[in-house]
């Protein structure tokens, strides 16, 4: 079996005992950019959402809205455009069969899927982004297209207090380095966990 090396897996990150924050990487089993609109094209999206456990999926989806489950993330990232990402191989297979390849762009490895969790993650990330997190500018379930340091990134406020960060794959390590630098400078213990370092169910 060919070895899979994810974006953060290319680098040997220092180990850190008792980190306060953890940046972990989720291996993507499938990802698609899907064109959406107010017309019948929404129906296939609803079906896709059902496959991911988003039932019901509030239609029409407005910009910045995201839904997430334990394994999937669906978000409107631009007018008329949705990003659907899953870390579950079975889900990915079911979606691949359902999604019309002429109406969506398969982009499994285009973005890295990172999750930043831990004590004080709101305050730490608030200082890294131009989004007023502490002021509620990104409520749980919302997604924003923004920049973290010099790296463009999609940021999703996950319901349980963490944040999903989805940079382009080639920039993922740079994003992690930016976070590590800021954490070190502010005395925050932040650990980086590439996808290979922790167990995810249904890894592809």
């Amino acid at each position, binding site marked *: 079996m060919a070895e899979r090396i994810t974006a953060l897996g290319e680098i040997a990150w220092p180990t850190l005992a008792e980190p306060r924050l953890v940046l972990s990487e989720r291996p993507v089993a499938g990802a698609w950019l899907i064109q959406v609109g107010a017309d019948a094209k929404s129906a296939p999206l609803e079906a896709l959402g059902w496959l991911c456990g988003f039932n019901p999926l509030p239609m029409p989806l407005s910009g910045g809205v995201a839904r997430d489950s334990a394994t999937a993330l669906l978000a409107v990232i631009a007018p008329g*455009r949705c990003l659907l990402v899953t870390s579950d191989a079975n889900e990915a297979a079911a979606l691949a069969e359902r999604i019309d390849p002429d109406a969506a*762009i398969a982009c499994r490895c285009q*973005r890295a899927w990172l999750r930043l969790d831990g004590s004080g993650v709101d305050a730490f990330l608030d200082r890294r982004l131009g989004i007023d997190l502490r002021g509620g500018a990104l409520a749980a379930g919302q997604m924003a297209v923004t920049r973290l340091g010099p790296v463009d990134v999609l940021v999703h406020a996950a319901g349980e207090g963490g944040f999903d960060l989805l940079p382009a794959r*080639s920039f993922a390590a*740079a994003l992690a380095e930016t976070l590590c*630098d800021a954490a070190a*400078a502010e005395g925050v213990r932040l650990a980086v966990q590439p996808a290979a370092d922790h167990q995810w169910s249904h890894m592809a």
Partner: protein
Amino acid sequence: MRRGPWRLERGGIGIDRSRPLTFSWNGRPLSGQAGDTLASALLANGKRVVARSFKYHRPRGIYTIGSEEPGALVTLGSGARRDPNRKAPDVALHEGLQAVAQNCWPSPRLDLMSVNGLFAPFFVAGFYYKTFMRPASWWEPVYERFIRRAAGLGRLSDAPDPDAYVRAEASCDVLVIGAGMAGLEAARTALRSGARVMLVEERDWLGGRLGLEPAQVDDRPATAWVAHVAEELGAAERASVLTRTSAFGLYDHGMVGLVETLRPQSEQGLARQRYWKVRARQIVFATGALEQPLAFAGNDLPGVMLSGAVRGYVHRYGVAAGRRVLVAANEGSGVETALQLCDAGVEVAGVVDSRPDNQCKPAAALDERGIPYYPGHALVRALGWQQVRGARIAPLGNEGPMPAGLQTIRCDAIAVAGGWQPALHLQCHLGGRPPFDPERGIFIPPSLPDGHHHAGACAGVAAADAVRQSGRRAGADAAAACGFAPAVRANSSLHGDNSMAWGASDRLRIVPAIDGGKRFIDLQHDVTVDDVALAHREGYRSVEHLKRYTTLGMGTDQGKTANMLGLHALGEVAGVSAGEAGTTTFRPPYVPVAAGAIAGSERGQRFRPWRRSPVESWHRAAGADMITAGAWHRPRVYPQPGEPSSRAVSREAAHVRAAAGIVDVSTLGKIALVGPDAPEVVNRFYANGMKTLPPGKARYALMLRDDGLVMDDGTVARLGEQRYLLTTTTAHAAEVLSRIEFLLATAWVDLDAMVASVSDHWATFAIAGPRSREVLAAAFPDRDVSDAAIPFLAVREARFEGLECLIMRNSYSGERAYEVYVPADWGQAFWERALAVGADYDLRPYGTEAMGVLRIEKGHVAGPELDGRVTAEDIGLGRMTRRRKPCVGGVLRDRPALQAAARPRLVGLTPLDARAALQAGALLRATGKTGPEAVAGHVTSVADSPECGSVIALGMLAHGDQRHGEVIEAWDGLADRVIPVRVGPSVFVDPQGSRLHG
């Protein structure tokens, strides 16, 4: 007169007498107290001369008590941490601090360069515009070296800054800048109204002037009031208070730049400073006011100090500026100064007040304390050599000071009370000029967009009660503007006199000289009253010219204690008021900001985000010589141990033509295009005909700009009826995607298609060479890779370890070649597998240099040729395009100038000397011709071709198509070299293209 230590036995609310600190000054150990600044500690140790001035090397002492300090500039630290031009009052004392005086040798008291003062009559303002002219050849070897040695402030370390810095963002409802009384009231009011508040203060304590003199607020000591407010703010989740934080810049849309000093230097990776970008819905400026000096002869002597600073050193740090202090004033705070000093145990030699007798209301307390009072008098000269030893005063008549009434007063310090000026620098950063209030004789805040408020002294408010109210009102207004119900309390009384009078608008600021003597305006740049008059005589009459000609206000203090005095001096010679003279433009930063703070962690290798290819770690481990290509790091060549790079490049290129090579081209731009109108999109976007491209085929494609010139080249692969994969060059990937998105959103809204970058999704490798098909077959054992299955320019799906991949047969090298697209997470796995199975066919990796050699041998254009100035015809691709097809750039490509026969055309160039050092960028001209008119083109790309056994090149040459066989010159003016070259076809190897199918 008190002798002995300068530290007073009582007072010093800001120091902890139980915690002594040791620091070094000019290499000698001294002691201070916790809470001291470097300035207060130096004063406490009797150090009066702490620096030398910029031009004349005159002795300089401590003049102020804040960041407006013009003269006491010191260098902290040593080695890589050497930090010059720090203002002594602004440096918090800590254990082990190292500080040295600047601009002097061997010491500030004995400075050999003070001989400059002897040449003062020659070193007037602007002297350097009239000297050092002849002989002109002396400028660099003599004049410039001398000037650089003689002048300058401080010396930077040229070692990398070892400290860490961090950048941060913040948002708030109300940002309050300045934590004096007005700022504290504004912040508290806004907080109580429900707003999220940030309060920033450049000092490490709150209270502003309340912390510098005895005062009462609400019937209690001011310090207690400050602590109470600070506690309320500190306990509130919606409030954050940052001390040791300077607001250095005001920008559009409520953006403010702050720099917060966290610690004197980094420890264990912790940042020294934090650079903030704050977005505030409302901003309250509570920046206070800056005390202004007086200009009299000798006013730059160490021992002359602003009166507010003298009071502050006594009250906050328990330090006396002198043993016997004379106060010189033109407004009421001079009396207040004398009273406070006397009550603190400092001997006061007298109060010299330039106001006429009938305007003065001398406090009876002066009499009670036996302090001599001289109303209607002016201090005309400070006496002393390196520090104040006395002063001469004279009564003021209608014509000015009357020499007949001269008196000499013995003193060793002079406290100068010249009035106040609101601190407005930050408020002017948006480009506004502050208007002048002739009644109060001050400049007041400029008009600003909504969302900016002013409170306290910076708003022109003087009386204490009014200051408090203005703070509350500003906080309430700011909160209301954010949609909160404002919480404003009723007036409360204030005990103690904290008032600060602006003084009469026509008060005496510039004392006429008796018997000559320099009257300084700008202590840092040695600009005098006479310099202002000289500039005016020489025609530099506007304040902007005055500034640049004299360098008034151009020092590290931005003229905070000089600009107003300079305007009045200009007004005197020009016969206008200071208001009519106007101010210069205040620009960020308000205080110097370390470059490290601006950079944050984006330095060294992190200067730009490092974009990693899926196989980059393999390349490095294999010993590749890497090169940066934008944000990517690419393998340039894989030299064997001890092998010169140039030889390795030739080896790699030759090997590709002889056997097989694999190169990582994952950095190429890849764009997915899908939708019912995807075929129409590609047909409109590219200059080639695309309607006939069937699924499963690819085509080399040319993109034009709107103006008809070539933007980029790439390939278009049709994967399905409505699915395409577009490739671009690495450099133009973002631009091409952006262009298509723009067109779909604007001009082509009728088209139903979606486009997105998949550059990072696919790891891409080119396998090239005569044995490339065999390698491909080994890498994809379950796939038919015959010519029938994958003909030239075909694109096919394949599977690697069950993963969907693509194989496209095209060629950049002119050899049989295949591009393999693998999902990026498995990119390295495929690369290693290909090399492993390809070993049987002598597959080896090659880098970007060899790739360049191969494409130049084949005459394929790349970035150096596609420089934004060429048409499709210029580079020999005109026949590939469809002239009658509407496409981007299709109309303007037919402009006559783009069709001119004399346009440069792509040619091949072979030097007559096969080993000639031909360089890209060399200009082409006919043999023997010289001059700009002779230039007919330039060399674009050069390669040492193993296949041709010679250096070869591509170039753009006027009439190039008709000049094949001609010998011309490649002229390199920088290297002063002329190389004869023969013009020929741009394809050097296999012009028939037979190797593509070999």
